[in-house]
């Protein structure tokens, strides 16, 4: 499964994602550079990792969303390709318009770095199809701007289309309706604030469940 992990200037979870996917097995990994515009048609998965792309200048993810490689990633996503954005990657997905809503400063104004519990709201996505709905995942978060904001009208659309994938059990950042992760209407683009790649050994292995689900989904397709 050809997988591209994008490095922006300031990305710092790209190697963690690489390591986690490698240990999960089955992913053929390539690092991609933000200034490049590679042909992505033979890729199965693109990962936008966490970090502080472009130093979080202007707004988190704003500059990265307009970098050369994102034109290719947006095309890839619009053709139905699987794209996951983790933390800063989630912010980039919102800034690029691939996901609705926006991420703003945490209500507490603090940078929060800790393990949290999220509820898996649906199994009807490539990202969670082998995880039982309503089950709990233990995943770490590490962000200063993770307060997900969406209008009530757009939230109703998310609910109608079952786009809310993860919700916080103890809303640490003040997100609207406790949203920790969501996908687009077509379910091929997934953004989440928690870090599955940091939960693939030692304390929690729950992050691996997302990779396993993805492998199961891609296995069914081929």
């Amino acid at each position, binding site marked *: 499964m050809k997988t591209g992990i994008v490095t922006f200037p300031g990305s710092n979870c790209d190697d963690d994602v690489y390591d986690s996917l490698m240990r999960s097995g089955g992913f053929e990994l390539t690092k991609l550079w933000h200034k490049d515009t590679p042909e992505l048609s033979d890729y199965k998965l693109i990962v936008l990792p966490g970090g502080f792309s472009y130093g979080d200048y*202007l*707004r988190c993810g*704003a500059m990265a969303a*307009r970098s050369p490689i994102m034109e290719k990633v947006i095309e890839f996503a619009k053709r139905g390709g699987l794209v996951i954005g983790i933390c800063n990657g989630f912010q980039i997905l*919102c*800034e690029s318009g691939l996901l*609705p*809503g*926006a991420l*703003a*400063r*945490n*209500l*507490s*104004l603090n940078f929060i770095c800790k393990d949290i519990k999220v509820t898996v709201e649906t199994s009807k996505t490539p990202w969670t199809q082998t995880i039982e709905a309503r089950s709990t995942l233990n995943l770490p978060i590490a962000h200063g701007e993770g307060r997900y*904001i*969406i209008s009530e009208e757009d939230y109703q659309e998310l609910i109608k289309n079952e786009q809310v994938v993860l919700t916080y059990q103890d809303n640490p950042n*003040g997100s609207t309706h406790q949203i920790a992760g969501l996908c687009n209407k077509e379910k091929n683009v997934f953004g989440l604030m928690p870090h599955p790649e940091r939960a693939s050994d030692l304390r929690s292995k729950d992050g691996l469940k997302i990779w396993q689900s993805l492998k199961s989904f891609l296995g069914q397709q081929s």
Partner: protein
Amino acid sequence: MKARIHVFYKDGVFDPQGNTVEESLKKMGFSRIKNLRIGRVIDLEIDYPSKEEAKREVTKMCEKLLANPVIESFKHEIMET
């Protein structure tokens, strides 16, 4: 020509920073205040043949990058120098 752009959270989007600063001012005795909002000011030098064109282009810059229309609003002024 110069442009000055102001970007703020939209009304209705909670601004925790503004709220915290407002609380501080109140604790310092400035009790006759409310709705403190903190935004961003962006200054730039521009070169367009007319003020109208400058306004149109600066508006585009705001819509495409400088403000996030989901949570922020913007206004700008064009100054002849």
